[in-house]
């Protein structure tokens, strides 16, 4: 196909890509800077900001809370979301679309509204500032992704294979354990990663309902509003590395599950 304005278009496209990528390209080298203020490009290199991160017990504690909450909420989201996705795909009952839309709602409703709503309710039932409250909030935000990914996975899994298992006398639980689960494993793992990252990066709901609990994003946010501390470049770089690793695993899993990259 002949195209419009090839060269200018290429220049423009590359510039926009650079714009998209600029934040990452700046933060990573800066985290290795030896200077005590934020300057780019760094003139000397050191690991001092990584040191100051790993030697600060408050950051380590925030990391621990973040990981704990992300693990619990993503596992919960995966368990509940997968069962729901199975019911939605295989079941035939009235109001399915409505229920499906309801599961997707936390993705569409601005998180700050979810945060306000949770705050008001948690304040009443005493979940404000508690770990369970935080886990519930994060689970809500992870659920849409789980339902989305698992629905696609279950839909693309031939229902006849399940029926064969039943016809050979398997109970639902045996079928689930021996047939469905092994086949859905890659997708489930991918969905879990998505829910995990969602929780791990979450700021807004955390700011509203976490009370005294500090997660890494919450602590970062609070520090950023007050001052600019170069330790954050190190944390940011670690988070980028972490996200990129999870992204690669996610992409590989989706490919294995046949949900991505088939042309």
């Amino acid at each position, binding site marked *: *196909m002949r*195209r*419009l304005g*090839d060269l200018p*278009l290429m220049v*423009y*496209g590359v510039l*926009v*890509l650079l*714009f*998209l*990528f*600029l*934040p*990452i390209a*700046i*933060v990573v080298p*800066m985290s290795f800077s030896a200077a005590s*203020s*934020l*300057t*780019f490009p760094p003139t000397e290199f050191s690991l001092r900001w990584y040191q100051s991160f790993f030697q600060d017990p408050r950051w380590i504690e925030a990391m621990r809370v973040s990981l704990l909450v992300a693990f619990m909420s993503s596992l919960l989201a995966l368990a509940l*979301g997968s069962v*729901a996705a199975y*019911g939605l795909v295989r079941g035939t009952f009235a109001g399915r679309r409505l*229920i499906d839309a*309801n599961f997707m709602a*936390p993705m*569409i*409703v*601005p*998180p*700050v*509204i*979810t945060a*306000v*709503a949770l*705050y*008001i*309710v948690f304040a009443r039932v005493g979940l404000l500032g508690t770990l369970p409250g935080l886990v519930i909030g994060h*689970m809500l935000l992870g*659920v849409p992704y789980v*339902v989305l990914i698992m629905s696609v996975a279950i839909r693309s899994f031939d229902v006849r294979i399940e029926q064969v298992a039943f016809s050979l006398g398997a109970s639902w639980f045996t079928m689930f354990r021996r047939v469905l689960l092994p086949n859905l494993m890659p997708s489930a793992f991918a969905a879990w990663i998505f829910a995990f*990252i969602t929780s791990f*990066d979450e*700021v*807004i709901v955390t*700011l*509203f309902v976490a009370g005294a609990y500090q997660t890494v*994003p919450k602590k970062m*946010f609070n520090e*950023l509003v007050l001052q600019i501390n170069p330790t954050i*470049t190190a944390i*940011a770089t670690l*988070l*980028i590395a972490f*996200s*990129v690793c*999870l*992204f690669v695993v996610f992409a590989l899993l989706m490919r294995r599950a046949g949900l991505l990259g088939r042309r």
Partner: protein
Amino acid sequence: MPLLLAMLLAFNLPILLMLGRSVSGLEFSLEHYQRLVEAPVYLRVLANTFKIAAISTLACMVLGYPLAYWMRGLRPGWQLVAVSLVVLPFWVSILVRTYAWIVVLGNDGVVNRTLMGLGLIVDPLPFLYAELGVVIGTTNILLPFLVLPLFAAMLKIDGRLLDAAASLGAPPRTIFLRVFFPLTIPSFGAGAVLVFILTLGFFVTPAILGGGRVPMIANMLETLINRMPRWELAAAISTVLLVVTLLFFALYRRLTEASEGTLR
């Protein structure tokens, strides 16, 4: 279905209670909405939010369309590279990316030092803690939400349509304006609406890059809840935001359906 129960308890009920909170003290009243309309402060913040959302959306459209169009024409290998470059930032925490913009746009930041080094300006330009900084950061973060679906929609356009137009003697410009562009309008519009919705509720970037000087709805809600305890007012504002968001989401759904319709 356990999830349904969990959702009802943990999501629907809180939202309903919030709606309830917005119209009640001890009895039903629209008092909080009245206060909302009467106090110019809140209306100004609402207007400001819409303004920033509109500007950011426009910026995403201007940057995103040519990018997606260019990516469509790339060879498959390069296409994969380009898509990865769009998707990767998407996976990196919003907080991290926003933080980077402080470094880039600050008074002593990369942009200002370059401009001063080139002798183009004498004093640093105040990007940070101003609307421009918020718009730049927001655009940067939300751009993938427009580019990815638009690119996917462009890929689905049948190349033979364009070849047919060319074989009938249409110059590239005409093909683009009369055939290609009209086919992409629904998905382009859907992407723009999505960015707009997301900006309306955006919290982190305005808070950090705006430094409290660029008030947006989400940040005002945080102040009302965490610092002032004015829950009813916060609930009323949330309700307004929720309704507006849902209205735009309905528009978004119509556009995506239209887009699937034209491309099938």
